[in-house]
């Protein structure tokens, strides 16, 4: 429904497909045909039959007119050489989309590689070469790349070979067609290499060699017919290297302003009047938090539904009176939504396609509190106990374990509490600060297992009976046959990132663990087990 959102979603799906299979979306039969015939021509290096005019291009990106014209100027007239460009700006400002659309407009050959999908040098190299050699992975070639290429030196040799032959055929193409232009034919004899999401390369193992290589690629190739465009979320000054590199030409995409955002959200609305009155209410407060289109659009979608609830017919033009009524209706929801993280996960690796459960559990791990009181994922009882004991081991000082879990059970805690309050206020504050700074503590496996045994044995009896069972608790653990299960549970909790494995302690040499769950989450788990967690939690 929101226009800017639809290209967003489109972009996610078409980013790769738009370059490897240029027309898979537009005309399925045509792409099937090319798939079947296996013979790709150089004209497949652009968007075939998808020419758009400059006006269409500018109109589809509100607030980006100046940037589009700047980019087109930099790309220049046909067959003009270009220095490497570096396009940067924060997430969801339309960098990739605009560049790809400009190439659609100019109809020039290019290759596109995103460093998200090409996650290591070899995949990146082979993806570029596949596109240049007009090679497509399919059943008949066993989904293999055209060339196997791991080393940068092989890559540069193969790249040069591929580019030379491609440029030669492009020149032939120009000569054949003469002056007459058909829409399916690529323009010019320049080939552009686009590298998207370059900031991710910094995290790669070999980033110290790959980054200078990519930045110096233009100078190494020494081919004026090649244009290189980098797209990155972070600015050029964050790409450091020892001896530097040939600096590319920087182009900056600023975040959208509030007015731009209004234009973006007003695009393709069924009822512009209604939506405009909705935006009057929500846009300003939300812009104080974030101006990212993707986050805003996910926040606005449910809000607008809420806004429309009182109206039966969505086509009506709201009167002033109606607007006031709708305003009082939506008002409480705005402040509620403002204080919620929109459901778009901030980490790029969490795909929107992930199922709901997973996303929620991830949300929890990031310490997001949910209004619901139930945990919405399944976990065995022993895993829950393990989670709680890990939480306790991380939060409580190890010296207090004996007094918390010994024969007297949790009754001692009150005395402890009073004792701590007797301390001077300063000391308490520094302690508190330390906890804030240091976060949950680490603990060895033995301590976790000891606490686990203590709390499971307590739980076998109802809390009322606890006083009667003095003495016998420490001895009666779960039988040792369960132990292997427990270790298995522990490792699965580790892999689910509820517990992290830290480095080994330099003195003891054993691996240390740390619980990463938030207190809300631990309390929720405890509630589901009817376990009195707060009783065992040491508060300073």
């Amino acid at each position: 429904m929101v226009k800017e959102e639809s290209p967003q979603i489109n972009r996610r799906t078409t980013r790769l497909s738009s370059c490897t299979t240029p027309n898979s979306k537009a005309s399925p039969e045509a792409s099937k045909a090319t798939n079947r015939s296996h013979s790709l021509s150089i004209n497949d290096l652009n968007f075939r039959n998808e020419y758009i005019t400059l006006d269409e291009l500018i109109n589809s990106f509100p607030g980006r007119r100046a940037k589009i014209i700047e980019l087109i100027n930099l790309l220049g007239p046909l067959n003009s050489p270009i220095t490497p460009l570096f396009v940067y700006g924060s997430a969801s400002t339309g960098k990739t989309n605009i560049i790809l659309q400009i190439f659609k407009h100019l109809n020039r050959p290019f290759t596109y590689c995103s460093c998200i999908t090409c996650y290591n040098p070899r995949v990146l190299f082979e993806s570029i070469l596949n596109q240049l050699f007009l090679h497509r992975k399919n059943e008949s070639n066993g989904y293999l790349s055209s060339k196997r290429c791991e080393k940068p030196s092989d890559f540069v040799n193969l790249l040069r070979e591929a580019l030379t032959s491609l440029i030669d055929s492009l020149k032939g193409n120009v000569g054949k067609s003469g002056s007459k232009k058909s829409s399916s034919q690529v323009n010019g004899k320049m080939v552009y290499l686009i590298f998207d999401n370059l900031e991710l390369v910094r995290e790669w193992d070999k980033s110290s060699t790959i980054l200078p290589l990519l930045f110096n690629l233009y100078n190494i190739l020494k081919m004026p017919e090649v244009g290189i465009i980098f797209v990155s979320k972070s600015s050029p000054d964050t790409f450091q290297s020892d001896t530097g590199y040939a600096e590319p030409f920087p182009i900056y995409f600023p975040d959208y302003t509030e007015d731009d955002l209004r234009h973006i959200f007003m695009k393709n609305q069924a009822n512009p009047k209604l939506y405009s009155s909705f935006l009057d209410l929500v846009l300003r407060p939300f812009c104080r938090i974030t101006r990212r289109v993707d986050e805003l659009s996910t926040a606005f979608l449910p809000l607008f539904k809420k806004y429309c609830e009182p109206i039966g017919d969505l086509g009506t033009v709201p009167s002033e009176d109606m607007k006031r009524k709708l305003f009082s209706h939506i008002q409480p929801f705005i402040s509620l939504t403002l204080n919620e993280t929109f459901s778009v996960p901030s980490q790029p690796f969490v795909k929107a396609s992930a199922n709901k459960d997973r996303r929620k559990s991830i949300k929890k791990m990031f310490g997001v509190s949910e209004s619901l009181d139930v945990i919405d994922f399944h976990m065995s009882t022993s895993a829950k106990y393990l989670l709680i004991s890990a939480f306790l081991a991380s939060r409580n000082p190890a010296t207090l374990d004996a007094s918390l879990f010994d024969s007297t059970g949790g009754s001692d805690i009150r005395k402890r509490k009073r004792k701590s309050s007797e301390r001077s206020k300063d000391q308490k504050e520094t302690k508190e600060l330390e906890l804030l700074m240091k976060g949950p503590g680490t603990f060895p496996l033995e301590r976790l297992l000891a606490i686990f045994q203590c709390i499971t044995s307590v739980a076998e009896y109802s809390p009322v009976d606890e006083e009667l069972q003095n003495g016998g608790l420490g001895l009666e653990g779960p039988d040792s046959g369960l132990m292997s299960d427990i270790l298995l549970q522990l490792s699965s909790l580790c892999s689910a990132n509820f517990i992290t494995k830290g480095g080994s302690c330099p003195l003891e040499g054993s691996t240390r663990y740390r619980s990463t769950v938030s207190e809300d989450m631990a309390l929720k788990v405890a509630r589901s087990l009817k376990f009195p967690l707060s009783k065992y939690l040491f508060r300073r």
Partner: protein
Amino acid sequence: MGHENPAEQAKIILRTRLCNPSFIFSLFSQSPDSNYSKLKYIISSSVTEACNNSVLLLGPRGCGKVAVLEQVLEELLKEHPDMISVIKLNGLLHSDNNCALKEIARQLCLEHQLLFSKMASFDDNSQFLLSMLRECGLAHKTIVFVLDEFDLFAQGKQLLLYNLLDAMQSVTSQAVVVGVSCRLDADQLLEKRVRSRFSHRKLLFLPPSREDLERLLEHILLLSTDSSLPDDYTAAFNAKLLNILADDKFKGVIDTLCYSDSTVGHLLRFLFSAVCHMDMKSGFLSLENFKSALPSIQRQPKLEALKDCSVLELYILVCMKRLEVKELELCNFNSIMKEYKSIHDAFQTSDYYARNVCLRAFEHLLQRALISFDDNRGQGHSTEFRPVKLLISWHELHQGLKSYRSCPVRSLGV
């Protein structure tokens, strides 16, 4: 195509020049004391006198080391055909010995129409190299090894350098090793056994002087009269350009440009931007083009990122700044949230958001590289507990806040 429009043609000509380093540095090849003449003398004398030699070309990036070398080699290949074969290696690609030898063998085979085997081992390749050196020496043919990014070859055991330079100690071989590096201390990186075999010739490439720069500008931008462009257009273009070049305002622009970086590479990027934005209607470069090109290449990424921040993100930055003023040794998300709450309590601002919303804003700041995690310690911790630091100065933050249109933080007494 494009024959109709002389302006477009002129644009293409200028862009082609800007992207062609050998055209740009050909200006300096005439003068007798230039690096070009010195380098040409060194290489040509070792070619004609059949001796071994080695030389280092040092200087910052964008000063034309490789461009001058290429020009020299091209010239010498013309003067002494069939007496020189050039092997080009790049430290970024061939710093690994195995790889380097393979590449040498490949290029030698290509040069001498031999069959190159991909499967050849390291030993085979080094044997091949030695025998090729001997054969070429007997045929009075010089092999020129060009090692770009020379400092990267000096990593590790320097086996390749040792092998090359050691082979050059014998009478039969005839080779020149040219190292190119932007590290001025590149020769200090060499091991003793390599250094003793290296002749300590160094050519220093420096950014051009002011006079050279002006000559360079004319050399690049003036259109030649014998091109396919109409004569009247060329004349008008050149007259207008000379006018601009003599303008004091233009000299001011060039001064600010050279103030930060006076290498040729920097100048070329500047000119590229000016040429790209040349007005196609009038068809001439204007002073405005140059003026607007200056800010487009001298970017201030941190200030740009600050301008993009939302109000909440600015709040977090201000909180961090206040914590920094308090001189706490560590700062993480939790302590920021405490400070945020205290600001809210003290000033009763309208912008008080839930913790998770703040956490996301915090993550945005990390993405914008305005703040960063302090070190790699505490990898296992979640984001809230990892210590962070501010990457912008007090001055920058203040400037950013001032330029913000609806800055609410002014009331906060920062």
